């Protein structure tokens, strides 16, 4: 007698009904990059609905702005999209300067633009590293952080901080650039030009990576506009939405660069747009770094800034997309109302639209290509 009876395959009952059920993703999920909770309705592994639950780290920055002076507001904006902190600061400073009709020196404009583009590269480096990690390629994380570290060192020397820099003030920048700034930036540009092809060799061309990205999370151009998508998310769908092109600020009207556009609208397109943007940012830095005009690094403003009565709107392009600052002043030393139109909130609102019908694994990859920074959503 055989020790084990031969197992007859069981007949599978195909009549059972699949049931939709409900799971939480987050708030402490490593792929959400912050305290973001997604409520997923799934059927097997197919996603039926994604509902973001926000507000875990909401600090009500808009309310805090109403009691702060215009100089103080600048510091709060660091804490929104902390990977674009310089550009956020710039947005507020530009709003205040426009309202005061204050013309800042050319030197300030160029410095702001160079550091802004360095910020964008640093942000994209981090995104690229984390993006690889989300789809299972751990090496990218170390590559991305290695190069980002060089930028952070440049920032530390000139701005005094590595992440939340607070380098901008209304009227200019806080200090003049460090004597090493130009040389170190040039060194970085030279270094990084050899590294982006390395990124491509490691991740972009990888077959597994391509298969996970291509045709996943498709967003059409019409939907991108309707959902208010901006930044690489919009441009991956062929929607020309670069604020630097359409409403140039600081020194961006003096440089030539191409708007990175892809028309496929899938995860791979959004990925490729960011890689292209790193090249464009390098090109912008190269055009400006040798021609930083001499002059003052700030113009004096009153210790107490009072904006004329009225409403002011300024938009800038952060690494994530369009940041709008809407300020209403009644003529006092505090703004009456400040609204930050953050790119993150609009970009996450389309997650349900592009993730439905896909798998949970694809949701992780799709979310990585949206490049969400949660404090930017929970302002």
């Amino acid at each position, binding site marked *: 007698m055989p020790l084990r009876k031969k197992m007859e395959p069981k007949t599978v009952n195909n009549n059972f009904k699949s049931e939709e059920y409900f799971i939480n993703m987050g708030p402490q999920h490593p792929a959400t990059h912050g305290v973001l909770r997604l409520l997923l309705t799934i059927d097997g592994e197919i996603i039926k609905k994604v509902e973001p639950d926000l507000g875990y780290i909401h600090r009500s920055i808009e309310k805090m702005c109403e009691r702060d002076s215009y100089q103080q507001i600048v510091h709060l904006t660091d804490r929104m999209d902390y990977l674009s902190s310089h550009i956020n600061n710039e947005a507020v400073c530009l709003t205040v300067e426009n309202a005061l009709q204050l013309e800042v020196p050319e030197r300030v404009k160029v410095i702001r633009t160079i550091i802004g583009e360095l910020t964008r590269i640093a942000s994209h480096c981090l995104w690229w590293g984390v993006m690889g990690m989300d789809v299972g390629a751990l090496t990218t994380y170390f590559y991305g952080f290695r190069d980002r570290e060089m930028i952070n060192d440049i920032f530390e020397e000139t701005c005094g901080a590595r992440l939340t820099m607070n380098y901008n003030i209304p009227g200019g920048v806080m200090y003049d650039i460090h004597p090493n700034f130009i040389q170190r930036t040039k060194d970085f540009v030279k270094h990084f030009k050899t590294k982006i092809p390395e990124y491509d060799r490691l991740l972009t061309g990888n077959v597994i990576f391509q298969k996970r990205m291509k045709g996943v999370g498709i967003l059409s151009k019409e939907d991108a506009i309707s959902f*208010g998508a901006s930044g690489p998310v919009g441009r991956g769908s062929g929607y020309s939405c670069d604020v630097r092109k359409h409403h140039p600020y600081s020194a961006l009207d003096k440089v030539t660069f191409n708007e990175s556009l892809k028309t496929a609208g899938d995860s791979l397109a959004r990925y490729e747009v960011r890689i292209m943007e790193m090249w464009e940012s390098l090109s912008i830095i190269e055009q400006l770094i040798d021609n930083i005009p001499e002059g003052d690094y700030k113009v004096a403003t009153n210790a107490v800034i009072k904006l004329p009565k009225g409403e002011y709107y300024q938009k800038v392009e952060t690494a994530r997309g369009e940041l709008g600052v809407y300020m209403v002043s009644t003529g006092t030393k505090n703004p009456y109302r400040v609204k930050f139109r953050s790119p993150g909130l609009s970009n996450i609102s389309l997650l349900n639209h592009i993730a439905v019908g896909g798998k949970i694994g694809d949701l992780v990859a799709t979310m990585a290509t949206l490049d969400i920074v949660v404090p930017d959503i929970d302002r």
Partner: protein
Amino acid sequence: MNNNELQNLIGSWFPNQEANKVVETVPETEEGAEIKVPETVNPSLLSFSEEGSQFLNIAVKKEQLHDLMKRLKENPETNFDYLFCLTGMDWGKELGIVYHLESTKYRHQLVVRVNTDNRENPNFDTVCDIWKTAEFHEREVFDFFGIKFNNHPNLKYLFLTEGWEGYPLRKDYVDEVNMVIK
């Protein structure tokens, strides 16, 4: 289109039957200042202003809000397909919404504002059937100002926890524990 052309076109959509005179004064919403509508403009239910703002501003009554927004989006000459900012406002007596619109085709920009003096139960028609981005932004306004949006598909708190009392971004909100007033 420049601001004047926009003003003429949009003003002609909502003619004011009752107004016989071409010139009328309309109160500027937030400041109470009075401006004169240029004589070339049709008497309209809308009021236009460029004062204190870099954009052309339209103040609309809440009954016409949805109709106006739909036409702004769908009219091929205006083509405002991009709602780039939706802001809740507490003007003291009144609550309101400010919509910033842009056309991705023509790149002209426009601000639409609507107010209500009903602080107990403020409500406006939703625009999220016109621009999908409005869904989340209207929920944010609902959180912080308590403004309700009629026909909104999923009107519940976006940031606040359920059962939160009061509307934090209103000017009369008091939280003695968590707010530091200098």
